[in-house]
């Protein structure tokens, strides 16, 4: 049998990437990592990319005689949903007009676009390197032709009071616990088939977090609902609400395949309002 190899999406991007950005030249060897070898490249944080189903990571290092190295990593996440998701893992920084939802903070530029998450960082803050980082970002943005669609579950989020930068999209309990620790066990039965969005709301000076989880089937949603009540809100009243020991309110409701949980609401009124407002 003859084995035929096809160019991957990363291969296609690679052929168009610049070898030179200002004084910075690409090193001779690019590197490409898969879901196994990525652990040798990103020590400590690789699980995040794996949790979002990373397919490949392309890495190119640019060096200059008088400046820090610049590292371009392009992660092919396989879908725009996961590219968006891994982007939401860390949304600190200033908004920039690059890719989709581009962000810059000292030393690091990142954005998502189509099925890719793009990270460009310099090993040390440096004025000329920062300009090169932006130039490189624009080039990569231009090379990725298509824009990606955001996960549909985001449309379920109430609009009023939503803190846009707080939105996290995920489908792994480890990632949820990183952003908001709920339990040392997967009491919401989150799996790769579950779509979860977590967001912070501020309305009339009051704050709360809202978690939405969409399951494949009704049974899975009901199981998660029962499990959460059992382990987290055993004292919930008939409407699924409970006053926590820190004087905040938590609440849960299930509507078909969609589970909605309010966490740490400043008032019962806000918790009720958010549950009612889920679209």
């Amino acid at each position, binding site marked *: 049998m003859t084995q035929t190899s096809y160019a991957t999406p990363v291969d296609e991007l690679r052929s168009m990437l610049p070898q030179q950005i200002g004084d910075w030249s690409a090193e001779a060897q690019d590197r490409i990592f898969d879901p196994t070898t990525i652990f040798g490249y990103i*020590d400590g944080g690789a699980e995040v990319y794996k949790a979002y189903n990373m397919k490949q990571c392309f890495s190119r290092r640019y060096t200059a005689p008088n400046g820090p190295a610049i590292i371009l990593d392009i992660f092919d996440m396989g879908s725009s949903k996961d590219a968006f998701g891994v982007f939401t893992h860390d949304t600190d920084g200033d908004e920039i007009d690059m890719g989709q939802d581009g962000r810059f903070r000292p030393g690091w530029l990142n954005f998502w676009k189509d099925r890719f998450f793009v990270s460009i960082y310099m090993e040390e803050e440096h004025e000329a390197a920062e300009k090169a980082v932006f130039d490189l970002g624009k080039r990569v943005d231009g090379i990725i032709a298509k824009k990606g669609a955001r996960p549909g579950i985001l449309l379920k989020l109430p609009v009023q009071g939503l803190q846009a930068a707080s939105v996290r999209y995920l489908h792994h309990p480890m990632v949820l616990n990183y952003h908001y620790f709920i339990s040392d066990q997967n009491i919401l039965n989150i799996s790769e088939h579950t779509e979860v969005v977590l967001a912070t709301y501020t309305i009339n000076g009051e704050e709360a977090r809202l978690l939405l989880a969409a399951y494949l089937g009704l049974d899975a949603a009901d199981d998660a609902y029962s499990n959460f009540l059992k382990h987290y809100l055993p004292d919930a009243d008939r409407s699924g609400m409970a006053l926590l020991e820190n004087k905040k309110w938590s609440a849960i409701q299930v509507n078909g395949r969609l589970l909605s949980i309010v966490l740490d609401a400043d008032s019962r009124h806000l918790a009720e309002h958010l549950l009612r407002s889920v679209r």
Partner: protein
Amino acid sequence: MAEKKRVLTRRDFIRTGSYAAMGSLIGLPLLGRAAGNRNDKSRVILIRDEKVIADDGLVQPEKLADMLDKALKLLFKSDDASDVWEQLFGKNDIVGIKSNVWSHLPTPAVLEEAIQVGLMQAGVKKTNISVDDRSVRRNPVFKNSTALINVRPMRTHHWSGLGTLLKNYIMFVSGPWMYHGNACEKLGSIWRKPHVLGKTRLNILVMLTPLFHGVGPHHFSRSYIWRYRGLIVSTDPVAADATGARIIQAKRNAYFGEERPISPRPLHIEAADVKYGLGNSRADRIELIKIGWEDEILI
């Protein structure tokens, strides 16, 4: 089937107020509190030398070896570092030196060499000494070890808040990712595994150029390391880590000009104390001895 394992939730933390206060490294739910009430204080040596890093950034081997000698003498109340090595190790020992190879901030090779010299002074055969990180589970010296030395630089870390001495033993288990939940709170349990339990005789937290903040997938920028020029040495890994954590926290606050908590909270340090009984995390249970360069010591 009956559910045997207790489910720990955020509610447990809320009940004890653990999510309300930050900065003191105190506050885990008091589940299975084992050793947090020990009467003995843990002795920790913080030694710094302004000259241990030259202007070109290179670590000076003689200075570093001298720092280690001084720290050992103080830690074990001895006049002679050779005596300390001989007290700690013997000719029949098989010693694994658990290092750290993280490419941006590895354990300095010159420190690994200084440790090996000390071990050989104590009569340990060269063939019975090995320095390793990622391969410790396959390394014959580690597999047959009678003693371990734990040595690594401190840095902020994506999952655990801090890369610590406690966390350095994660390579002793086959599934490191299984310990990432709740900011790696369970790392202390690794130290109770049979192939690790009771073997560690010395912990050296390298504070020469610690990383106090991370960005990007690689969690690294040279902008966030600084030349602290120190070593923290103790037989108690929890006390050494807690001391290092306070320095990192102080550096973050100073650098950012505001309270900037280590994120995520390094819960595993507190858990190693109150849940796994590996040592003392609270400052009032640590006898901290500071020697050497005092400039911007931060603690």
